[in-house]
């Protein structure tokens, strides 16, 4: 179970901080849609206090893998472990019950409600005669937002008037309130401006500081390099590489995303520098 060596191309040893039991571990997970094999024997693992970037071209199987982990589209075969215990992620409720929360690109916020109502939607604190305990909820909201270092005009601001970065923070805070252990972020910086992207990246670092296991799916390698500890690359439904971010370059990651010959790509694209896009 503590066997953490996953042999694949370009593999570098894990940093010592991540020895131990992974928060979430997938082994030999496969999934097919009819004749199409979306995932083939994929291994995946994320440790507490680690941010893993999941990258790959379109159709590489990122979304399918996320759906497997979120319980939306269960795997056909393979084993899944949460904190070392074998589990079956058969539905989103089961996944949430095990502490796996997903923030989708659309954030799933009610624009007409305020921050407090959104954070506690479906899990309201109640008091006297089962009425809403607004003050306790507001208090807990402020506590959670403080740990994430989020700044707002007020906890009673209507969500529609917040910026994109603040909205992302609210969606993440929702996961924290539900005592998530593993947080999946689907394209958290897509459609955000420069300042807002910085805000969200800071938010991800704060999640790591709190010892959560974070999985970031992103097309933007610049963002990936700024915040993740490790990058897992999928290509055509297989895990082709896992890079320690300290010992790699965007060029090497792109090479394994596209499956290009390593040397030829490096010479062809070297001049493009750090901001390469990992796929279209």
């Amino acid at each position, binding site marked *: 179970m503590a066997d953490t060596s996953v042999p694949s191309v370009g593999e570098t040893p894990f940093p010592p901080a991540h020895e131990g039991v992974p928060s979430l571990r997938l082994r030999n997970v496969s999934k097919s849609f009819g004749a199409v094999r979306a995932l083939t024997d994929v291994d995946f693992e994320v440790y507490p206090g680690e941010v893993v970037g999941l990258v790959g071209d379109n159709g590489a199987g990122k979304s399918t893998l996320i759906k497997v982990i979120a319980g939306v589209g269960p795997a056909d075969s393979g084993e899944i472990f949460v904190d070392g215990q074998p589990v079956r992620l058969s539905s989103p409720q089961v996944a949430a019950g095990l502490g796996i929360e997903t923030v989708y690109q659309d954030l799933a916020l*009610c624009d007409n409600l305020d921050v407090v109502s959104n954070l506690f*939607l479906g899990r309201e604190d109640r008091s006297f005669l089962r009425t809403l305990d607004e003050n306790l909820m507001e*208090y807990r909201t402020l506590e959670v937002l403080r740990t994430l270092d989020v700044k707002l005009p*007020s906890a009673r601001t209507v969500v529609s008037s917040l910026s994109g970065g603040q909205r992302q923070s609210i969606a993440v805070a929702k996961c924290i309130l539900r005592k998530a252990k593993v947080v999946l972020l689907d394209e958290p910086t897509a459609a955000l401006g420069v300042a807002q992207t910085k805000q969200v990246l800071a938010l991800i670092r704060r999640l790591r500081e709190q010892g959560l296991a974070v999985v970031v799916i992103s097309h933007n390698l610049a963002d990936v390099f700024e915040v993740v500890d490790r990058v897992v690359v999928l290509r055509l439904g297989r895990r082709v590489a896992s890079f320690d971010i300290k010992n790699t370059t965007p060029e090497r990651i792109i090479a394994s995303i596209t499956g290009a010959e390593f040397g030829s790509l490096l010479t062809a694209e070297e001049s493009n520098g750090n901001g390469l896009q990992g796929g279209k």
Partner: protein
Amino acid sequence: MSEIQQKKTTAVVDQSAVAAVERPEYVRRRTIGELLRGDLGFLPVLATLILVVLYFEFTTNGLFLTSRNLSFLAQQMAETGVIGLGSILVLLLGEIDLSVAAVAQLCAVVMAVCSERLGLPAIVAIPVALVAGALVGLLNGILVAVVRVPSFIVTLAGSIAYSGLLLFLMFGQTTLIVRNDFIVAIAGSPVSFLPDYLGVGLPAVAVILYAIGLLYNYTRRRRLGLRTQSLSRIVVQIVIVAILVGAAITAFESYNGVPYSTAILFGLILLFWLILTKTSFGRHIYAAGGNVEATRRAGINVVGIRIAVFTLCSTLAALAGVIQASRNTAVYSAINPTLLLDAIGAAVIGGVSLFGGRGSAWAIVLGVLIILSLENGLTLQSQGTDIQQMVEGAVLVIAVVADALIRRAQARSGSGR
């Protein structure tokens, strides 16, 4: 409970949570237009009402603002108001119920048939009517929420079917006189008024409870270290409410007192205001009206909420039918043609969005007052139905246009509710 206890003790240490997160300097200075679309949205509506009232007061040589006319207006308010309250619930979901007027009439007929033809006591006939309304609403709700038929089709078709059913129940009669004393006493007799001690006492108790609630909330927020309104602002708020309630009660008491039907209307508004703002159920109605997908993902049973709301709406319509039958001391086979749009229009004029998720139970008060003041005032001016209908239609269109414009402005600026 223990969690709350724990919070109380930690609150002393954690005063900084508020300061760390809430940054008042992040609040943009809002333009007057934004304010009028947001918190002060009731002001244009109130101004319209005052204009309407003043106009009729002058053109009818002071007939409009007599206690007698106001008392009559209040009794008219009850039916439209109670139906409108149900419509608000449905509108908050972003749906619409076009069958409310037919359901009201149908249930009134059911009650009249039970009490007059079958000779059942009112204590049975009225609940039968309410249950009939609930069943109709349940059917509407299931068709909308489970079968996923658009609500306007379900309820439009329903309203035709229900008006057929009520003709069937009337056996071809056009009028069925209601003689049952208890039913008539609800709104149709000279004694249908609360005794003075209740007419003054109940609103007074409500205002006192409201004041206690605000002050308790203030102390609790202070204890948890949350930002509070200043105490003087809370006092001003209480005083304004007390003055409004006091003025209304004085107006009623100077004539016959508070009509039962008005007491029922305001009791229901209070009840649904509490349900909408203080319970999870109410919160989930707003959520489902704002973003159905997010609400579903939060683990909320959206189908159940839709069914419950349609059931409540039709039950309220049934109650309105009972009140109407009592006031007319008869039920008719013809459905009041303006009742449906009066009720939905009143909700929209009061500020409930046709697009869902925005509005308050109190919206119905101003909305119904504007619509009925127009009707009442034009009648006092001896204008014919032709003018009345044109004016009312124009007012409804203006209200809906305002709603659409507000929504578009919000989508553009991304602000406010």
